[in-house]
C-alpha cells in the first residue's frame, strides 16, 4: 500500500486545500458536519456571513475533507461517517449545543420539489383551500388528501397525511403542495454531528428542550425552598414562610386545644358555630332545631 501511495501523484492544489482544511479543524474546539444539500449558493453565502464571529463554514470536496480529518486524527476522523452528499465543515469555539440552536433558528421554510425526500411528515391541514371547483379536487385526492367541493370551493375535509418522513415526493404531490403554498422543508445548515472536546454529539443529542430545563430550574428552586422550610434553615426568601408556618402551627394547636387566647377567640367562636351547624345538618327532625338552622 505505502509503495503505491508514494507513486500516487497529488496535485499541488489538493495538498494546499488539505493543509488548509487541517488548519481549520485544528483551530476549533468543536467541528461539525453540516448538510448543505439544496441550499442555493447565494443563500449559503448569506448564512456564512451570518455565522461570522460564532462559527465558520468551510465547503470542499468530501474526499479532501476526509483526508484532512484523518490527518488531524484525535477522534476527528470519526466525523467521516457523517460525510456524504453535499456537506460542509463547521467549526466553533462556542458551545456545540448553542451552535445547534443557532443553526436551527436560522432555518427557513421552503417548498419541496418532486423527487426530493420528505424531511418529516407532511400533512395537508383541514380547511378551505380557496381553490375553485375543478380538477384540483382529483389531484388532492390522488396525493392522498380527503378533499371535496363544499360551498363553492375545494375543501380538505380532515388533516391528511400525504407523505411520511423519508418518502420521495411525487410530481403530483409537489404540484399540490405548491398550489397550496405549503413549504414543508426547512432549509438551512443541517448539523449532522459535532465532535467537541473529544466527544461526538449527533444532532438529536444536541437538540435541547429549553422548557424542560426551565422546569428543572423551577423544581430545583422549589426543592431548595422546601428544604429550607422543612429543615427550618431560614434564608431571606424563606424567613417569611417560616414565620407563617410557625404561626399556622400555633393556630392549629390553639384551635384544637381551644386555648383561650385573644388571638384565637374569633376563630374558636367560628369553629364552634361550624360544629353546631354540622351537627344540626345531621338532625332530621326540624322540631329539634331553631329556625335559623332549619333546612
Amino acid at each position, binding site marked *: 500500500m505505502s509503495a503505491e501511495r508514494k507513486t500516487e501523484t497529488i496535485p499541488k492544489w489538493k495538498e494546499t486545500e488539505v493543509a488548509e482544511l487541517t488548519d481549520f479543524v485544528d483551530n476549533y474546539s468543536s467541528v461539525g458536519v453540516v448538510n448543505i444539500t439544496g441550499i442555493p449558493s447565494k443563500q449559503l453565502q448569506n448564512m456564512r456571513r451570518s455565522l461570522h464571529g460564532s462559527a465558520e463554514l468551510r465547503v470542499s470536496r468530501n474526499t479532501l475533507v476526509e483526508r484532512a480529518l484523518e490527518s488531524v486524527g484525535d477522534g476527528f476522523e470519526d466525523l467521516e461517517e457523517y460525510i456524504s452528499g453535499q456537506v460542509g465543515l463547521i467549526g466553533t469555539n462556542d458551545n456545540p449545543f448553542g451552535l445547534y440552536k443557532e443553526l436551527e433558528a436560522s432555518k427557513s421554510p421552503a417548498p419541496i420539489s418532486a423527487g426530493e425526500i420528505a424531511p418529516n411528515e407532511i400533512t395537508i391541514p383541514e380547511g378551505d383551500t380557496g381553490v375553485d371547483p375543478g380538477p384540483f379536487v382529483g389531484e388532492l385526492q390522488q396525493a392522498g388528501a380527503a378533499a371535496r367541493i363544499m360551498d363553492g370551493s375545494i375543501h380538505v375535509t380532515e388533516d391528511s397525511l400525504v407523505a411520511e418522513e423519508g418518502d420521495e415526493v411525487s410530481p403530483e404531490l409537489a404540484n399540490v403542495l405548491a398550489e397550496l403554498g405549503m413549504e414543508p422543508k426547512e432549509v438551512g445548515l443541517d448539523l449532522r454531528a459535532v465532535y467537541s472536546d473529544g466527544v461526538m454529539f449527533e444532532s438529536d443529542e444536541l437538540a435541547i428542550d429549553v422548557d424542560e430545563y426551565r422546569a428543572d430550574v423551577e423544581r430545583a428552586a422549589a426543592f431548595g425552598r422546601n428544604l429550607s422550610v422543612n429543615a427550618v434553615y431560614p434564608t431571606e426568601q424563606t424567613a417569611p414562610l417560616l414565620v407563617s408556618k410557625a404561626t399556622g402551627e400555633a393556630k392549629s394547636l390553639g384551635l384544637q386545644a381551644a386555648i383561650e387566647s385573644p388571638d384565637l377567640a374569633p376563630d374558636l367562636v367560628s*369553629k364552634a358555630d*361550624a*360544629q353546631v351547624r*354540622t351537627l344540626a345538618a345531621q338532625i332530621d*327532625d326540624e322540631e329539634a332545631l331553631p329556625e*335559623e*338552622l332549619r333546612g
Partner: protein
Amino acid sequence: MEYVYAALILNESGEELNEENLTNVLDAAGVDVEESRVKALVAALEDVDIDEAVEQAAAVPAGGAAAGG
C-alpha cells in the same frame, strides 16, 4: 342554636345527653327552655355520632377560608 350548643357541652363533659341534663344547662344559661324542643333534640341526636360531626366541622376552615377565596 343554644340547644345544640348545650348538647355539645354534654357531649364533651361525658354526661348523658338526656332531657333533664339539657334543660339544666340551658336553665343555668338563663334560657327560657321549651320542653318540646328539648325532647325533639334528644330524640334526633340518638342516632347521630356527635364526635364525628364535630370533627368534620373542625375540618372546615374556621372563618379563615373566606380569605383564601
